[in-house]
């Protein structure tokens, strides 16, 4: 009997989705969302049921495939880190326009404090933008339970729903009690096939329907089951605590809290509960992880209503994740007396593993680029991003998945030489290929290094979509075969690597160099098997 399991927040979502009758998960790895899909990949139950769980090339292909599964009536889930929402956005926003057939839950794992990300964007904005319900659990158990509700809401209203996680919950374990599992849906076609063709004449109708549904979404989130109002005797302040913020609030009180509290786990914001709080309290403190979206809504443009305290007014830090500590003063409590931080402690930044092929690639590249006055190296998202830090200091940009090739192209268009792109194998198939086609079509003078370690390394070694196909892909896109150069990045091949890089920089056109050697982490794992 599998009644209780110790699960990460991510794993609770996965198990919750399986028990809610999931037929397929679609995802591209990204911290802190990766473990959701990995859990389903490792689940014997999922294997037996043949639940789809193979990685997608990127978040957009994942979102679209999930929508296709929903079209034929089955329940599907898409998982990504917050910046993945930007990649999936076209499909995501339009899935709200088409609506769904089988339940479709989009999980976006936000990373406030940027533990492993380039920004702190708050996915709740995407839910508001697409005008669909958003869920935000505070505990592992809630993550498990809410996923089922998310599928139910999606199927009841026939829209995709957004499920927002944050790093701390995604990567924290607790015991979760499982509930009765239910069957997957059978294949069934949409009752109104027209609404899936978003030509203007259809879309205009659908948009009005979606707007009309907003009242229903609101009524659903005014249910006290998901947005609980806890009465309190001290009305000088009411507290709105969203998702994980509720845990930090209660940590500071342990049952002795006198302020009224609204615990938010479903959006749109429950107007009824908030109206009650505004009517009975003198001020409102908003505790939310990420950007101040609730606070901003309450404040309004003119900020002339009830006094609102939060990140915008300075009671809470403007950036970074919430903690049980950073809310103490806003609650009017006294911070604990603590040991002072040790002055001896210095930062210990992450680094490329010893023996990693990216190291040899950067060692060779650095030597060659020193021969030029102003070489620029545009890089990308992955382990090799660590080439920015000591000892390599090898790269000049990291913006988003795929931007290395396109930025190198734009700089070359403007006259930059040498203009070099460094991108990983998985990032290349995620978003680099289309940019390479742009460069080929214009015979841009760029040198692209696809540092191929046969895996998606930074997220822990997931399968990489293009493994074994890179020469063919580059040729197919139109890179000249003699300018696709493969080399094994090892110290003993340093001279060969340097020569290849030098030759290809000096070739006036698009060249692709593929230093290829397996990630030492995955190689170690394979050796054990």
């Amino acid at each position, binding site marked *: 009997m599998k009644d209780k399991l110790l699960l990460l927040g991510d794993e609770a979502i996965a198990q919750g989705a399986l028990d809610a009758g999931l037929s397929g998960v679609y995802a591209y790895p990204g911290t802190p969302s990766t473990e959701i899909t990995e859990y389903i990949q490792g689940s014997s139950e999922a294997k037996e049921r043949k639940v789809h769980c193979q990685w997608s090339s990127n978040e957009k292909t994942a979102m679209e495939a999930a929508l296709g599964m929903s079209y034929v009536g089955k329940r599907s889930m898409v998982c990504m880190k917050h910046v993945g929402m930007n990649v999936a956005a076209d499909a995501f926003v339009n899935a709200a326009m088409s609506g769904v057939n089988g339940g479709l839950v989009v999980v976006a794992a936000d990373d406030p404090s940027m*533990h492993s990300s380039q920004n702190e964007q708050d996915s709740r904005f995407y839910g508001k933008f697409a005008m669909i319900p958003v869920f935000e659990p505070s505990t592992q158990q809630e993550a498990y339970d809410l996923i089922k509700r998310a599928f139910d809401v999606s199927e009841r209203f026939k829209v995709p729903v957004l499920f927002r996680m944050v790093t701390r919950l995604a990567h*924290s374990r*607790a015991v979760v009690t499982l509930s009765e599992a239910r069957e997957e849906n059978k294949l069934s076609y949409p009752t109104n096939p027209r609404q899936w063709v978003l030509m203007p004449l259809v879309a205009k109708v659908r948009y009005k329907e979606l707007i009309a549904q907003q009242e229903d979404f609101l009524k659903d989130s005014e249910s006290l089951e998901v947005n609980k109002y806890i009465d309190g005797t001290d009305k000088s302040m009411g507290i709105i605590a969203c998702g994980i913020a509720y845990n930090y609030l*209660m940590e500071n009180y342990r049952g002795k809290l006198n302020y009224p509290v609204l615990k938010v786990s479903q959006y749109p914001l429950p107007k009824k509960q908030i109206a009650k709080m505004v009517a009975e309290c003198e001020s409102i403190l908003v505790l939310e992880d990420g950007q101040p979206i609730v606070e901003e809504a309450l404040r309004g443009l003119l900020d002339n209503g009830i006094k609102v305290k939060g990140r915008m007014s300075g009671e809470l830090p403007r950036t970074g994740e919430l903690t*049980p500590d950073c809310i103490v003063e806003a609650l009017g409590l006294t911070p604990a007396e*603590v*040991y002072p931080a040790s002055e001896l402690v210095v930062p*210990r930044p*992450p*680094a490329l593993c010893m023996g990693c092929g990216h190291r040899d690639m950067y060692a060779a590249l650095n030597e060659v680029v020193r021969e030029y006055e102003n070489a620029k190296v545009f890089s990308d998202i992955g382990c090799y991003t660590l080439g920015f830090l000591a000892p390599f200091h090898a790269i000049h940009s990291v913006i988003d998945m795929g931007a290395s090739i396109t930025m190198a192209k734009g700089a070359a268009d403007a006259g930059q030489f040498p203009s070099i792109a460094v991108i990983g194998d998985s990032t290349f198939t995620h978003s680099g290929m289309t940019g390479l086609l742009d460069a080929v079509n214009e015979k841009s003078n760029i040198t692209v290094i696809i540092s191929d370690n046969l895996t998606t390394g930074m997220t822990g070694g997931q399968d990489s979509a293009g493994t074994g196909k890179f020469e063919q892909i580059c040729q197919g896109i139109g890179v000249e075969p003699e300018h696709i150069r493969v080399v094994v990045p090892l110290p003993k091949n340093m001279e060969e690597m340097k020569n290849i890089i030098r030759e290809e920089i000096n070739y006036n056109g698009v060249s692709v160099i593929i230093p290829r050697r397996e990630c030492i982490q995955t190689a170690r794992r394979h050796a054990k098997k």
Partner: protein
Amino acid sequence: MKTDIVLSGVGGQGILSIATVLGEAAIKEGLYIKQAEVHGMSQRGGDVQSNLRISSEPIMSDLIPLGKADLIISLEPMEALRYLPYLSKEGWIITNSAPFVNIGNYPELEKLLDAVKAVKNHVLIDVDTLAKEVASPRASNIVLLGAAAPFVGIETDKLEEGIRRIFGRKGEQIVEMNLKAFRAGLEYALKSK
């Protein structure tokens, strides 16, 4: 009971195995646990920590508040000190004394060890050497777990059962090696307590 533990070290040293054994034993005892981990970028040779909270009452926050940790268990002396503001005034530091030097500006070891000794309740133990002597260098994290055992609020034989369960599927030899490592750490801590 309530034991809040900050586990720390350098990515790859194996702090999560310590957490796994403690968590397993705690759950078997019917206790609540929450364990926050760090995945992703910082795992690559950077500083890593995990917050493990064990309690007979339901636990609210996944993160331990400042000044509330009962224990800092660290596989690296500088990493132990990194979390000093989280340690309660009556809390214990149990740390490996052998440094992991992968940065150019690593502080002077003597000063680091003095700073650990300045904390009233501490156990300094060279787990790397001890693990090599009694078991295998790979078991140094379990030596440290042994050294922390008297302070976690779970009986040591329950922790040993946890080790048996966690390492059981790797074979009896691995279980015995880890039990030896555990007992060596425990003995050291009891002597220096």
